[in-house]
């Protein structure tokens, strides 16, 4: 039986972040990564480029091929962790092997949610979270001579990127969204409207406050599917893509006795309820920046950064992660869409929304008690990261707040002391920033 100082379950960004975090502290300790999918880690957000055909599989590798040997990582790809034996410090995998560990990390990600509608198992109904999904959809469409129309259930980030990819392949796209707008969790309503104009111009038809109730065999126009909607409409289509989100994969953790709620519970050091076992990424419930409560925040940077912090702690260097906020960057049909923190005012009031719109660009900022809580920016996004840093710093934005709405906002718009702090890299609450 092989035993490792560090065993990492999950070969996507969280797992890679963990490897890099460990190696930043411990150059020697043995590392193994178990990955359910085959091959080296790839850039999951780029599966839409794989679908559109803009990129090949090799072109979406997340790290160069030298990554594993250079970091002396044993990669076991294409096998699934089936069972964790905490007392024996063992993991049993689908290939029948058992591997030992001193420190364990779970970065098992999330599973796509598919509602319980009739016909969900029918060929032509896909989810879209893995490279394999993208390849299968391509193969499916190829067999259908390219296809003509797809229905996408879900107007979120995955749905939008898929829509763009399908448009690039020349398909008609109908997007069905339960809410009354796209990207509702990551944009303020007015920004959603702005983006919807872009989507409509790009030929995507949007069906809001609507959902899929079933998928039946197609009856008209040679379409294999008929997608039935709540309103009673039915849409003939080649393909239905279900993209309404992911839920954290907590089953393995729960079965092993780790505490899990909406995600695998971790403390700021990214350690689970059991000492020596860590978690990160979409599976982990991390400290919410605003509420302090644990919840998964399925965002790429959270996965990597949380993994890095976990890795450093696993290797013995104390680090805390307090990022825990939504951050999304997207470019859809060439239009930049960035948001971070809180973008929709919570019920109960007390939150102001500042908005600015100017030549093909708009921004909305949420402010409470003179502090920035979040923003959505479309169009001119050059200095969005400074706003994100301002959220993280918890700084009072007092006098310069009107400046935050300027499209050409930059460090220049902050008071000198703030600029110095940001230049010195002090913008986190834990960095003892004097801004807060």
């Amino acid at each position, binding site marked *: 039986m092989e035993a490792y100082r560090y065993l990492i379950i999950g070969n996507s*960004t969280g797992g890679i972040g963990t490897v890099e975090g460990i*190696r930043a502290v411990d150059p020697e300790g043995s590392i193994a990564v178990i990955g359910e999918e085959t091959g080296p880690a790839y850039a999951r957000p*780029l599966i839409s480029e794989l679908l559109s055909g803009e990129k090949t599989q090799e072109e979406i590798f*997340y790290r160069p091929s030298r990554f594993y040997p250079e970091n002396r990582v044993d990669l076991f790809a294409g096998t699934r962790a089936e069972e964790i034996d905490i007392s024996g410090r063992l993991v049993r995998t689908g290939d029948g092997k058992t591997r030992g560990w001193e420190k364990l990390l779970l970065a098992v990600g999330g599973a796509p949610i598919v509602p319980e509608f009739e016909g969900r198992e029918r060929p032509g109904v896909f989810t879209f979270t893995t490279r394999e999904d993208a390849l299968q959809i391509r193969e499916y469409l190829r067999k259908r001579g390219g296809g003509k129309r797809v229905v996408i259930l879900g107007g979120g980030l995955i749905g939008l990127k898929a829509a763009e990819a399908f448009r690039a392949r020349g398909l008609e796209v109908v997007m069905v969204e339960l809410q009354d707008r796209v990207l509702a969790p990551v944009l303020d309503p007015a920004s959603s409207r702005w983006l919807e104009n872009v989507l409509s111009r790009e030929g995507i038809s949007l069906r809001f406050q609507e959902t899929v109730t079933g998928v039946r065999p197609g009856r008209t126009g040679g379409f294999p599917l008929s997608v039935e909607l709540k309103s009673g409409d039915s849409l003939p289509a080649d393909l239905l893509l279900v993209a309404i989100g992911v839920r954290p994969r907590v089953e393995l953790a729960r079965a092993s006795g780790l505490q899990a709620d909406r995600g695998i519970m971790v403390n700021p050091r990214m350690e689970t309820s059991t000492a020596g076992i860590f978690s990160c990424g979409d599976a982990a419930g991390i400290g919410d920046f605003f509420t302090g409560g644990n919840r998964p925040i399925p965002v*790429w940077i959270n996965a990597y950064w949380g993994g890095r912090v976990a890795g450093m702690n696993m290797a013995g260097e104390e680090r805390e992660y307090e990022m825990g906020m939504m951050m999304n960057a997207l*470019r859809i049909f060439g239009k930049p869409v960035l948001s971070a923190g809180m973008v929709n005012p919570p019920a109960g009031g007390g939150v102001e929304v500042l908005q600015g719109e100017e030549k093909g660009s708009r921004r909305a900022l949420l402010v409470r008690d003179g502090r920035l809580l979040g923003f959505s920016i479309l169009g001119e*996004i050059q200095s969005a990261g400074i706003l994100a840093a301002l959220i993280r710093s918890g700084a009072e934005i007092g006098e310069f707040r009107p400046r935050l709405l300027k499209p050409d906002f*930059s460090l*220049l718009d902050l008071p000198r002391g703030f600029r110095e702090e940001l230049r010195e*890299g002090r913008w986190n609450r834990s960095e003892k920033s004097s801004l807060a």
Partner: protein
Amino acid sequence: MKKAGEMKRTGAVRKIQIREEACIGCHLCEFYCAAEHHPSKDLLKAFGPGRERPRGRVRVVEEGPVSFALVCRHCDEPLCVFACVSGAMERDLETGKVIHDPERCVGCLSCILACANGTILWDEKRGVVAKCDLCPGREVPACVAGCPNEALILTE
């Protein structure tokens, strides 16, 4: 080959330090940077009449008497690298440089959302970002060498 574990133990990491009280707002850093990253490495050839003007990786902002260059500070724990979805952004283990590979960049803008200094520039035309690479092959980066008032200095 450098051992990966030496990642954070990179000794003297060269960084460009900004001294805004000495910045005279001449914008020359932008031009020296752009020329250095032009195939010709020559100001006259890069900006000669009738040519498409290249963009650099440094940008000067100014308002009234205040001006300074925005240029990557090559963070030890670079959020742009953490945020990069494609792996185009990388921190060089040996030099501590945060380097960006435009070939692998998909223009997802995640790094721009992550950078607390706003120093990663979005090149809409090419659909990729651009950032300071500390001028490989030069002892002193072009902006630092060209700054007439030492408002940009190289620290180790």
